[in-house]
């Protein structure tokens, strides 16, 4: 009998699995958290449902862990094999905590000791966005342009690869992902005149298999015969050279400092590149390819398959680096394989991820720097009165951190909604001469930011990707700089810079629970199943990042141009929070 039952269960599983996988958003979920974005589709959706809209109000603090550091904590903790792994901001320590014992005592700590001078080339606080687990290794990046792999059991360093040079202004802050045994890593330094790249490393030994630059000749960008951009404006030879003033591409930014998604079926990974450098656009006439661009590439070779430049000749530091959530949706009656990309320019791009066609690009915040996206040509129609350069422009929205910055959104297949943590900021600017000195900032703009319409500097909203509109929104005092997680219990978690960790109803945004953390949070919440079978929710606090540099870096907000102008919008943050890195873990009693 027992045997028959197990066979029928197996059969049921066989029938269920193909159905389950028919949509990419229905990813397998074992209750662990093995990469920052939860899964390759970057949905940050957990099938755990013990904590739901009815009982989340009973959520209680279970245990805490101090990281000992006081700069911005942006990382997502990982949970693998009943162990939690936490990467700290610089100096990028890796802690392993034993979840099988009460209070989760430390198993080991790995301290890589990156070069302290790397702190001087981190544009927006010395953050780290987390690690990836792959075949017994914890793999993550160090601020001084290194990638390391650490044995997940012992904490022993397995390999360590130097990928760049801090004396060129390079650093790394992003969380890598691993696809087909290739570790995908990109550099930071778009404010330092670096040349942006994304590299593929062999997960076994850390050797660089390929490196795809984002500027320069096609052979460096890994553009070949299979490169088929959807729009004519992205076609042509060596555009990474021709769309720049002479030599500009060598110091043109376009780094890959943020999220990567992967579609195993199409065998394509997706990521965006940062702003071209310097910020002052008058110093770089041309489209500046491939700055502020979405790329689809093959993980084994790095070969580019398509690209779409979101913000040609970027005028406002609109990096194209934000997350790409991979979804299979029915749009205009047609089943489409799409990616959802909420861009810095304030528009939510829904694109066909097989070919790079834009299906919709509506605004999710107040936008006056552009009017629309022409879906036939892919062209972003710009507002000519907000053109920056060696001039002064006022009331341009969104500000350089965008309608939304790196803070990753989530998607629930149950509600069909994308949950967006974002900003509501406008700015005024004055162009100056940017002077290239290797290893120093290359910006050329004095900026002051302030709250957008309504006076709230941030919001948390739910977006319907099929109908391209906001369903509900919660205004927040400060930019919502945390990631989010949504669960099968229809609860969405996010945090605020004044230190509230919140749970809201995924259907309507009703606040269900909140807890005051010791410091403002800019971390990425996660949820996991503990060894006791219970569902837990975890988040790091520790205010900082670009938005929180005023507190983490002790800036003087008398100068509104501090922190590239973000200080002007955050003068009161110090009244709401102090710094300090701490992990908080919650569960139901």
């Amino acid at each position, binding site marked *: 009998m027992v045997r028959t039952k197990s066979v029928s269960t197996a059969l049921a599983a066989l029938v269920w699995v193909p159905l389950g996988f028919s949509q990419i958003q229905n990813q397998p979920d074992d209750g662990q958290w093995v990469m920052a974005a939860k899964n390759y589709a970057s949905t940050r959706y957990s099938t755990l449902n013990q904590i739901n809209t009815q009982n989340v109000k009973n959520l209680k603090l279970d245990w805490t862990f101090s990281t000992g550091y006081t700069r911005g904590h942006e990382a997502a903790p990982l949970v693998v094999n009943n162990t939690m792994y936490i990467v700290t901001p610089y100096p990028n320590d890796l802690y392993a905590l034993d979840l099988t014992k009460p209070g989760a005592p430390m198993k080991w700590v790995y301290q890589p000791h990156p070069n*302290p*001078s*790397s*702190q*001087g*080339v*981190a*544009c*927006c606080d010395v953050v780290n966005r987390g690690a990836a687990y792959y075949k017994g290794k914890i793999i993550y990046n160090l601020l001084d342009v290194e990638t390391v792999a650490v044995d997940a059991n012992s904490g022993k360093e397995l390999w360590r690869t130097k990928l760049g040079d801090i004396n060129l202004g390079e650093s790394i802050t992003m969380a890598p992902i691993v696809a087909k045994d290739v570790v995908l890593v990109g550099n930071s330094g778009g*404010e330092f005149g670096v040349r942006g790249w994304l590299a593929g490393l062999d997960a076994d030994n850390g050797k660089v298999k390929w490196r795809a630059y984002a500027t320069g000749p096609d052979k460096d960008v890994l553009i070949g015969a299979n490169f088929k951009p959807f729009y004519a404006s992205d076609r042509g030879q060596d555009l990474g050279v021709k769309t720049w003033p002479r030599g500009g591409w060598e110091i043109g930014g376009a780094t890959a400092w943020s999220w990567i998604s992967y579609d195993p079926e199409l065998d394509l990974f997706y990521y965006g590149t940062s702003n071209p450098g310097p910020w002052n656009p008058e110093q770089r006439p041309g489209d500046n390819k491939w700055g502020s661009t979405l790329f689809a590439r093959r993980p084994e070779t790095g070969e580019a398959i398509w690209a779409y430049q979101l913000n040609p000749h970027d005028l406002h530091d609109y990096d194209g680096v934000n997350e790409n959530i991979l979804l299979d949706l029915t749009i205009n009656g047609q089943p489409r394989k799409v990616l959802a990309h909420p861009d810095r320019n304030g528009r939510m791009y829904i694109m066909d991820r097989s070919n790079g066609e834009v299906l919709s690009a509506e605004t999710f915040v107040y936008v006056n720097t552009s009017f629309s996206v022409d879906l036939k040509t892919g062209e972003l129609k710009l507002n000519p009165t907000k053109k920056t350069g060696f001039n*002064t422009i006022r009331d341009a929205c969104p500000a350089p951190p965008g309608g939304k910055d790196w803070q990753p959104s989530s998607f629930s297949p149950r509600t069909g909604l994308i949950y967006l943590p974002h900003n509501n900021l406008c700015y*005024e*600017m*004055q162009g*100056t*001469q940017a*002077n290239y*000195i290797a*290893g*120093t*900032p*290359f*910006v050329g703009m*004095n*900026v*002051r930011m302030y709250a957008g319409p309504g006076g709230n500097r941030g919001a948390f909203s739910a977006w319907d990707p099929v109908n391209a509109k906001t369903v509900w929104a919660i205004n927040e005092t400060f930019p919502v700089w945390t990631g989010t997680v949504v669960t099968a219990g229809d609860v969405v978690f996010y945090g605020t810079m004044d230190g509230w960790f919140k749970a809201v109803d995924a259907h309507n945004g009703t606040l269900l629970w909140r807890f005051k953390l010791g410091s403002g949070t800019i971390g990425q919440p996660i949820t996991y199943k503990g060894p006791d079978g219970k569902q837990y929710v975890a988040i790091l606090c520790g205010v900082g990042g670009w938005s929180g*540099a005023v507190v983490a*870096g*002790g*800036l*003087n*907000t*008398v*100068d*509104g*141009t*501090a*922190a*590239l102008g973000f*200080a*002007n919008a955050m003068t009161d943050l110090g009244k709401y929070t102090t710094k300090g890195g701490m992990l908080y873990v919650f569960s139901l009693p």
Partner: protein
Amino acid sequence: MRNKIVFACFLLFFSLACQREKRDIRPSPTDLAIYDEAARESALRPGGPVSPQPVVNNPYNASGYDISEGQRLYNWYNCSGCHANGGGGIGPPLIKKDWVYGGAPANLFDTIAKGRPNGMPSWGGRIPEYQIWQIIAYVRSMNGGQPTSATSSRPDSIETNPQNIVNRTTGVTK
């Protein structure tokens, strides 16, 4: 008596005005031996008091020309990229009272020339010595460390006015 005071004020005014207009055609190097002594970062002197620490004065103090040159160079060498217009960002603010490595001119010279371990680049050999002193003159002016007669009353950046800053941070102008 009254005439004497007026006359004294007159003299003082002219002497300040002269300093404000002072330009050093041929910058003279500082005595680095003295300067090293002056750049100590600790107030603790084990074993009790010793002879007073020598003071190195910025040769370009109080000169309007050099402060404004310092401001130009501060932007030119991208100091502003990290320290903004004094409020900081990648690097710490320069409008402040607490200096980790000392705020005296000799300490500032040390910081710029040698760098500091947590991200401050080492500019020695890149920026000529006299330009470092001009930059220091400007940085000191952000904190009201220069006479108002020598500092600009109009901001170059979109917001920052050194005189306003002084008023708003310390409540006094010097």
